[in-house]
């Protein structure tokens, strides 16, 4: 019997039991849908963690003031001002050879305004090497150079989100904005970075740190009210650098051997790695659960095909009497379960695609359609159809024509 006829027969047989076919198919639909949605979300989540990690700049340590303790309650890192500008100068002096750049930063959220619009955003005061360490360039205008970075010039480099909010589609370069009531000239717009650990990376304004201190803070002070980014010469120097920075600061702060650090050094790479690992583990787990649901869907197909064979015993007998060979009967049932699984698989693909897209927008991560996984899932659906349809199909083919003909349902 040719395969096209077999397909037509299969579709017709399935169509005859629409409700049952549909319900059986649901098992496959949800199984495949779940696999795709879970794998897609897992990839999305992992990509997001990776992006967060990348947006921090690779190979960077973050140094902040220690925790302020009042009556035993910790105020958290940086709540105590303990890093002086002299400390920063000492770190920059080249005493620790693995250090490449030392970048002090100060940040606050404040109101900014252009002629047309205003916006609440994060304003960071820093020096020119910040852009190098963060690996971030301007797409329009330029970031500030070393001299500007060290000056108290009233210039600003703005993120794309700020540019859009304040200037819509007009070019912001050379335009004046007011930060905290102070006029600044926009000299550059940063490349788009997307989501970061603290929300939208592009919702940012960078100004020289001296200007920041004078115009947004209480003037030049002895202590740095912010964080210091420390970048290293090469990868894999985090451990030694952390130890050396710690030793240097403890020495400068005249801490005894049993005193607690009055500063904190974090390694975001390590943090990101841990987060990435846990995300990966969860993603794998979810995919496994989804795979189990697909398996259950497959068992549903097997069960229904088995019932179908029993119900149609007489039909099988008739077909055999008029010349159907065992292989014809087997193929018929096999193709039926294959068609069932394939249609279920297609619907599952659509469902998984939709679910993945919805979850991506809901959780704010990038939408991934795992084409390879979708392909595999679809192949698995086909495999389920053949695999789980095989046993009932073989049973059908092995029926004795006389017994089958006499079968009373």
């Amino acid at each position, binding site marked *: 019997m040719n395969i096209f006829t077999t397909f037509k027969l299969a579709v017709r047989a399935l169509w005859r039991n629409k409700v049952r076919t549909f319900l059986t198919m649901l098992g496959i639909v949800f199984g495949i849908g779940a696999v795709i949605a879970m794998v897609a979300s897992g990839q999305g989540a992992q990509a997001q963690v990776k992006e967060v990690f990348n947006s921090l700049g690779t190979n960077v340590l973050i140094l902040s003031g220690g925790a302020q303790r009042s009556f035993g309650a910790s105020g958290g890192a940086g709540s105590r001002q303990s890093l002086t500008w002299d400390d920063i100068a000492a770190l920059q002096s080249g005493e620790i050879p693995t250090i490449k750049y030392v970048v002090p930063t100060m940040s606050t959220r404040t109101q900014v305004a252009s002629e047309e619009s205003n916006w609440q955003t994060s304003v960071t005061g820093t020096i020119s090497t910040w852009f190098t360490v963060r690996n971030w360039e301007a797409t329009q205008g330029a970031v500030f150079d070393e001299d500007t970075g060290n000056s108290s010039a009233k210039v600003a480099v703005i993120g794309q989100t700020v540019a859009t909010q304040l200037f819509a589609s007009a070019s912001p370069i050379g335009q004046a904005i007011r930060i905290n009531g102070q006029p600044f000239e926009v000299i550059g717009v940063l490349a788009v970075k997307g989501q970061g650990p603290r929300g939208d990376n592009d919702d940012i304004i960078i100004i020289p740190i001296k200007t920041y201190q004078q115009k947004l803070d209480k003037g030049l002070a002895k202590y740095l009210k912010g964080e210091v980014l420390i970048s290293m010469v090469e990868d894999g120097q985090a451990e030694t650098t952390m130890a050396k920075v710690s030793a240097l600061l403890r020495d400068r702060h005249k801490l005894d051997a049993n005193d607690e650090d009055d500063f904190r050094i974090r390694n975001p790479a390590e943090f990101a790695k841990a987060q990435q690992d846990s995300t990966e583990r969860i993603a794998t787990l979810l995919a496994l659960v989804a795979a189990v649901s697909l398996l259950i869907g497959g068992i549903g197909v097997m069960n229904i095909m088995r019932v179908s064979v029993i119900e149609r015993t*007489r039909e099988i007998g008739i077909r055999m009497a*008029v010349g159907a060979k065992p292989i014809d009967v087997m193929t018929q049932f096999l193709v039926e379960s294959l068609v069932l699984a394939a249609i279920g698989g297609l619907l599952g693909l659509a469902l998984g695609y939709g679910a993945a897209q919805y979850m991506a927008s809901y959780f704010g991560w990038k939408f991934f359609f795992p084409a390879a996984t979708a392909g595999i899932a679809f192949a698995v659906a086909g495999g389920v159809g053949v695999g789980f349809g095989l046993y009932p199909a073989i049973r059908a083919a092995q029926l004795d024509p006389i017994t089958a003909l006499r079968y009373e349902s």
Partner: protein
Amino acid sequence: MAPPLIEMQDISRTYVMGDNLVHALRGVDLTIETGSSVAIMGTSGSGKSTLMNIMGCLDQPTRGSYRINGKNVGVMSKSQLADIRGRMIGFVFQSFNLLSRTSALENVEMPLMYQGVSGGKRHERAMAALEAVGLKGREDHHPSQLSGGQQQRVAIARALVCEAPIIMADEPTGALDTKTSFEVMGILQGLVAQGKTLIIVTHEADIAGYASRVITLRDGLIIEDKAQAPVDAAKELARVTAEKEAADRALAARKGERAS
């Protein structure tokens, strides 16, 4: 000389039923030539159904040799038997055995699918077969929309469509009323006239009367094998129809008298 169409030698069939051995057939020798019409008679348990199953290649004997057209069926695989059934034998069953929820046309087309006949040819041949049994215009009806006689005619069309030389009918009129039985037997006799070999299994002497040879089985052995002049079903049908019309006219006449 061409070998006989059906040639059975010392055919035995034993079943195991629980702890008992049942000897359904105990050494049957039988030869049937092309173009004959044979009735196999016997009470239930005589072995006639077993004989028909073996003849129809639905079952295989435990002992003995069976040749169709000189080919030894005893050594064939399930697949080869299916092929023989498809090409050599058309079945007509007491319970029609049509596929439900499937049109008459598709039922008739079905055997051709297993012969690998293409869609267009299938349609053409199935339509011709339906026309031959007088069901033109009913090809789209499902079995549930057809009368018993019509269903049996669909089944006959299905048996004809592969142009198999042998038609095997197992109690073909068992589920039909007398008049419809004549119709169906008429069609089957017509096939014999066209050169087909007809084998009817029945326990009714009336039905056996339409065959030119009657074989009687008892306890798994042939006890009688005789030739006879067959009753013509078409004439019978005409006679019965005429009688019924006469009766109807008489009835109508009486009604008329009473009304006046």
